[in-house]
């Protein structure tokens, strides 16, 4: 699964805006956001509630349309894509990790991981082999045939990460992936995300936690739908305590 880090942009967002509602009730969720994430790079998005972090992530993951601007995922302009094309892009190239795990209760851990592959036409045996390999890398091979309600919170999130990186996925989007976990499991999850990026996957992670954001190569601060700051954790932990997050 490892691949070289060629630093080509996996995600490019140019002047992206998103508004909800109309007339007097219009809400500007994103205003002219620019963001580029290269292969092998892990970017953390931070900001207060309602700043547009999740909206940015859903637009990057083609789950939601944007009002204006341009979004390119792996060189493809998503605004020109049909709903089915975007679904194909998600199941082949984009991995999504949610705060509340979002595993399908009726499927085992291995089946949850192989789901995107099977949806894309991979035969179930081959998909299972690939899924088992992904679970094995995360130390979950022994729990492959357990159903989600038989797994702990940390195990479920590991399964979710395995699903998000299985196959040839090149963009990993994680929305508060450690929000429902304790600190030990939270760090474990970040280690896995970081590991995926080291193998060449571009990662974008939304978090409130400055400690977890320090795992990223770059931290982008959002406020009221605008990018207000960008910094590198290498500049020191204090750099993450920007006005945007401290309020």
């Amino acid at each position, binding site marked *: 699964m490892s691949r070289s880090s060629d630093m080509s942009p996996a995600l490019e967002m140019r002047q992206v805006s998103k508004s909800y509602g109309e007339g007097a009730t219009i809400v500007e969720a994103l205003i002219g956001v620019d963001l580029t994430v290269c292969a092998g790079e892990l970017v953390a998005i931070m900001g207060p509630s309602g700043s547009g972090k999740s909206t940015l992530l859903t637009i990057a993951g083609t789950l*939601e349309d944007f009002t204006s601007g341009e979004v390119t995922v792996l060189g493809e302009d998503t605004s020109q894509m049909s709903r*089915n094309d975007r679904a194909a892009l998600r199941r082949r190239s984009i991995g999504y990790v949610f705060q509340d795990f979002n595993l399908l209760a009726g499927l085992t851990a291995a089946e949850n991981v192989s789901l995107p592959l099977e949806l894309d*036409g991979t*035969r179930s045996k081959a998909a299972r082999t690939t899924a088992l390999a992904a679970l094995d890398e995360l130390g979950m091979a022994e729990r492959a045939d357990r159903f989600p309600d038989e797994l702990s919170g940390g195990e479920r999130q590991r399964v979710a990460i395995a699903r998000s990186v299985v196959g040839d996925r090149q963009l990993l989007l994680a929305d508060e992936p450690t929000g429902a976990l304790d600190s030990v499991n939270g760090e474990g999850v970040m280690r896995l995300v970081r590991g995926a990026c080291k193998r060449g996957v571009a990662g974008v992670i939304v978090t409130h936690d400055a400690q977890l954001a320090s795992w990223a190569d770059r931290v982008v601060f959002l406020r009221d739908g605008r990018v207000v700051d960008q910094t590198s954790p290498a500049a020191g932990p204090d750099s993450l305590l920007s006005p945007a997050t401290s309020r």
Partner: protein
Amino acid sequence: MKASTTGGGVPARRAMVRWAWRLFRREWRQQVLIVGLLTFAVAACIASASVAFNVAPARARADFGTANHFFVFEKPDPATLPTKLGAAKQYFGQIDAIGHKTVAMPGTTKNIDYRVQDPGGPFGRPILDLRSGRYPSSASEVAITDWIASTLSIGVGSTLNLDGVERTVVGTVENPSDLNDEFALLAPADFIASDSVTMLVDANEDKIQGFRPLGDHSRIIAARGAVPEDVAAAIGILVVGTVAMFLVALVATASFVVIAQRRLPQLGMLSAVGATQKQVRMTMTANGTATGLVAALLGSIVGLGGWFAIAPSLEGAVGARIDPLNVPWWLIISGMFLAVATATGAGWWPARTMSRIPTVLGLSGRPPRPIPVRRSALLSAGVIAAGIVCLAIANRVDESNGLSLTKAALVLVGTLAVVAGVLLIGPLAIRALAQLAPRVPIASRLALRDLGRYQARSGAALAAISLALGIPVALVAMAAAAENGKGAGNLSSSQLVASFAEIDGPFVPEPAAVPKLQEGVDQIVASLHGATGLRLDAAKNPDALPEKGINGQPAIAIGVRVKEGLQDAGLVYVATPQLLQKYGLDASDGGQGVDVLTADTGDLRIIVQSPKRTDLDGFEAVVSPGTLNRTYTSLPGAVISLARLQQRGWEAVPSGRWLIESTQPLTSAELSTARAVAFRYGLKIEARDYQTGLAKLRLGATAVGMLVALSVLAATVGLIRSEAAGDLRTLTAAGAPRRARRTITATTAGGLALLGVVLGIAGAYLGLVAGRLRDLTPVPVFDLAAIALGTPLAAAGLGWLFAGREPAVLSRAPLD
């Protein structure tokens, strides 16, 4: 290995179906209602279809065997009978001739049939079976039914002599299609001595009508329906089953909407990992199919099991042998297919809605925004208008050349469109009801708002309730109109008509037979409390020729000239003062310039002799028919005054009919006594034919409709309120008393029932009026009031009673 962008082919479909099946197994409790309803519908459809399939043809099979027509030759001439049957065989190819001779059974009031039938005949196999011993082969042998054997205490090896000839019993036989058919089977040698011969043939109508053997005077032809009775009955059940399945489909749709909304975050996640709309849709549709398959399997097992259990006991009730393995397999498969299609269709609708929800909304578990009601209202108006147009066109289709398929199709499409259109008004009605929310107390407000917020499942539930009430309302309206059309009935509850049993139609008994009949009538009158008997005299042309094979003389009758011929409207009775008094008329009314006073209308003709096909218009028309106010249909329908009778040169003769009237309604014991006396004197009795069928249908439809609607309500209200369990917990936490919880459920149930009643009644009457069933009066006010008031009140009351349970304090969020 990349597939197209529209889906992953078989592996993807397999993955979706696997997930759907797993969910079905994991969440089976939530689907028990759908599985239960479908299982019940399939089981009821299969069991009732098997019963109908076996019971419906028994009567016709007893008459026709496997043939489609029979001829009866009364008192055949032994000299010409073989020639006649030979000609028939040559003409039809195959015939099955059965000889009959009526013989009195000593010690009983029953006659039995001495029968001659070929056990290997081409059409008679279903009406003759050997139970023990063997068939008779010589004139000294006979086989008898069990009843004769037990009544006379004889068996195989005994002798039987009821007709002056002693025969040895060699076997026991039965008519498997009519176990009450008591007969003694004679050998073929006795055929020639038969009093009447039934000839079974299988031919088309033209060929039947073309059969005119020499000397063919007294024959009766009967024809079987074009469609086999078993197939017609089974198709009827299938149609009823389809309507029931549609009802179940609406409830199932409401259930699947609830299930789909519960699964919404999972469906959103599925979309997030790259599932196409089609794949998301497939999960719910496959769930529906799985539900349908399980229900079809369970239903067929229960239905067939029920049929096998009740089949043996049916023989006694039906009076025919029943083969439990004779089941309509094609209908069972159709019923199963219908169940699968119903569940799949019910799953498809919410699946379609859910698959269109934006992924982010799905992930957040927010329900879809209700479809604007104006869209469904416009659609409803369009569909209703299309239905009315179809029905209007159907009414203009000419049916003079028989049933028109075009008309049948237009009526079907029009009716379905009107029904669908009314059901589509549901969302608008729900929204209107929800508008009342601000004006009512908090608990009711919450209930009404929830109905409006969750429009998809409320709408499906309302459609099911409206349909469940609309069908019985239509039945009640039609039954009430039909009851009205039937007038007062045939006779009053204190009246009887006794008549000579051996004749019917425009004939009167031979004068010699009258004293015995009169004696019988006198005995009947004496047996009834304060009764009087009035002999009805008929007009007779002294020159009319007797007709062969009729044990009586031709009398004057009235016929109505119709396209197909002359329709017998009954004898012309002589207007005696006593008879006119029954009608409240003066004796002079029958003779002042009026030839015949009659209750009938149309092109009336006076029939003095049985009509021949070539001479239908040769009968004298009735001049200036006066109006006879006949209260009951079996009272004389045409009278002539004595003066006019004499002018025409006719004579008054006993008609062989007597009108007996008691001072009080006749009891069943009195009727039984009268029938027993009548039987002894060769009379038959006609009493009031209580029109209980229609009244029972009306009351039954009212009760069943309300019960079905309340059952549907119980199922759907439970579903709707289960989704608001969180609200209940919040209310409880906020200190809301038990009364508040009761009010919420009662308002939900009562509100839905009220809307269902309004739409059901409006839809039923709209459909009936559009179908140009003009005479819908009187409106069955009592029944409609019972439905309109009783259903919402009962629903609210039951909702109140069953909603007292306190909700669990802690909610368990479903695992995603």
